[in-house]
């Protein structure tokens, strides 16, 4: 589908699409997108000739379905749907163009469980089989010599459970713990009387690992590099804003979530959860690739060829312009 052969490169680079359909979830790890939209950065960077259509998804699968179906051009998503979409399409459908957020996940367990050894025979929930948290839990357990199986057998029983159900079950005493993303870590601790046994950030170098990145349809990346550049620039603007005005950003994000979902995150939880997440333009490629390797190690994936999943040329050009160091894909 790529028509960006060399003779047309120059023309393609200035060409802008008439419409950009930009996807995100009403979830605070998507704060970069929300701020970029609400503060008008996206609109400004794309220019007045481009119609910006925000698209909201409730979860990753829907985002990938829409990307595959050609119904969205660029969207924020977790590393898990990113890998899925890339591998299912044999590398054809999408590219990661930048990061969005890092950190903010961990294992919360009920009182009385103080060490990995105590987990033997217990039941732990993860959001879904094979997702980032699921892989992290399995890999962590494996390192502590606790066996697991994808069917939920082994020393520790892992059950895939969506976050709300996990909370309800944890409160009702039907679960011993859950490895979940924020703000669920905070809620499990607060509402379920749990203790945070593991903060996932401690397991990664520099305490950083990707939870949200920005992906774009390959055709879009090939055809409209200028638009990609504008979007990444807008995200950079948003991150600058978040860094500079965290309180304002928080309330802005929470208000936005409220308009879409009808609920807002309890401000008390939001403060705690927000502090556990780092908003960064760095897609942290090494953590994504490492996570994929971990998945293979615990038997969740056969083999993953993620070569070419990153297209960071636009991002690196912008970083260079700002005087920051380029991001390299190992």
């Amino acid at each position: 589908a790529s028509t960006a052969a060399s003779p047309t490169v120059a023309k393609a680079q200035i060409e802008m699409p008439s419409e950009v359909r930009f996807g995100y979830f009403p979830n605070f790890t998507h704060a970069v997108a929300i701020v970029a939209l609400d503060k008008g950065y996206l609109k400004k960077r794309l220019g007045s000739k481009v119609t910006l259509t925000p698209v909201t998804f409730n979860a990753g699968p829907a985002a990938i379905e829409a990307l595959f179906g050609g119904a969205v051009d660029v969207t924020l998503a977790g590393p898990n749907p990113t890998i899925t979409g890339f591998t299912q399409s044999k590398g054809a459908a999408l590219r990661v163009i930048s990061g969005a957020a890092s950190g903010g996940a961990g294992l919360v367990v009920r009182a009385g469980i103080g060490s990995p050894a105590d987990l033997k025979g217990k039941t732990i929930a993860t959001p879904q089989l094979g997702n980032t948290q699921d892989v992290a839990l399995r890999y962590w357990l494996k390192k502590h010599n606790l066996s697991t199986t994808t069917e939920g057998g082994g020393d520790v029983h892992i059950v895939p459970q969506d976050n709300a159900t996990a909370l309800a079950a944890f409160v009702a005493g039907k679960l011993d713990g859950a490895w979940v993303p924020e703000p669920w870590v905070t809620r499990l601790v607060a509402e379920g009387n749990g203790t945070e046994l593991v903060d996932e950030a401690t397991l990664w170098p520099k305490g950083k690992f990707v939870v949200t990145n920005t992906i774009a349809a390959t055709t879009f990346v090939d055809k409209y590099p200028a638009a990609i550049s504008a979007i990444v620039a807008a995200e950079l603007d948003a991150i600058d804003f978040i860094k500079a005005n965290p309180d304002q950003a928080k309330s802005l994000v929470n208000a936005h979530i409220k308009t879409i979902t009808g609920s807002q995150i309890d401000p008390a939880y939001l403060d705690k959860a927000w502090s556990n997440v780092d908003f960064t333009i760095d897609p942290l490629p090494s953590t994504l690739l490492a996570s994929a390797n971990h998945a293979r190690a615990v038997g969740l994936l056969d083999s993953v060829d993620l070569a070419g999943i990153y297209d960071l040329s636009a991002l690196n050009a912008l970083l260079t312009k700002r005087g920051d160091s380029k991001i390299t894909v190992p």
Partner: protein
Amino acid sequence: MSEHAIRPRKRATAGTERGAQLAVPRGKRLWDRAWPPLLAVIIALLIWQIVVLSGWRPEYVLPAPLTVGQTLVGQLGEPKFWLAVATTLNRALVGFAISVLLGSAIGIAVSRSRVLRSAIGSLITGLQTMPSIAWFPLAILLFGLSEQAIAFVVVLGAAPSIANGVVSGVDDVSPQLQRVAQVLGAKGMSMYRHVMIPAALPSYVAGLKQGWAFAWRSLMAGELLVIIASRPSLGVQLQFFREFANAPGLLAIMLVILLIGVLVDSIFSSLANGVRSRRGMGVVRL
């Protein structure tokens, strides 16, 4: 039988009875119809309150009726809530209307043609059992992220049900009436228009009722397909209240859904009762 045999059957002059019927009819009849559901609601609320008071589960998991009521009232005060109800109802009506047209057409076609019936008759129920989310990728492929995609999911949910209502209604039409119609010269479409459809009407209305339920359920899933920030909807609210584990909010939306369901049912019921009483049907009660 025994009661019948022992008590001497004697029915008093109805002169007084009839006078009574004429004197206080409206108010009394209304009250007769109103008190049972009211009582049911009160009993349900009471049980709920007792369970909450028993402290069985913490309040943020099982909120008290009053909390839910407050949440609901709070919602009712927000124009956004009404927007959501309006959006969802509008989608439901559009989807249902398309389903009625399509379902009726398919139902008539299948009930008329033996070949069609054996070709796709059973497929109708097969389609009904397919969960809505299975259609999402196809809906996006065909319609993108648009209102049409939602309507597509709704129609796939509801139309089979309506078609099944038509088919089973037509199958139940008295063969004698069909013979009469044939002799009178009805055939093909005129047979359907003048005889089969009117005769199958009660069953058709029952199918519509089921179709509505399917439409509504499919819609609750389908609304997640296209989430538009400025256009809130009940399906999205329900899903997110659940995802946020917001128990009072969830219960409030559930009450709203129940209420709409009950209202729509009473429309269908009065439709069906009208049809029946005009034919001298209905349960014989003395």
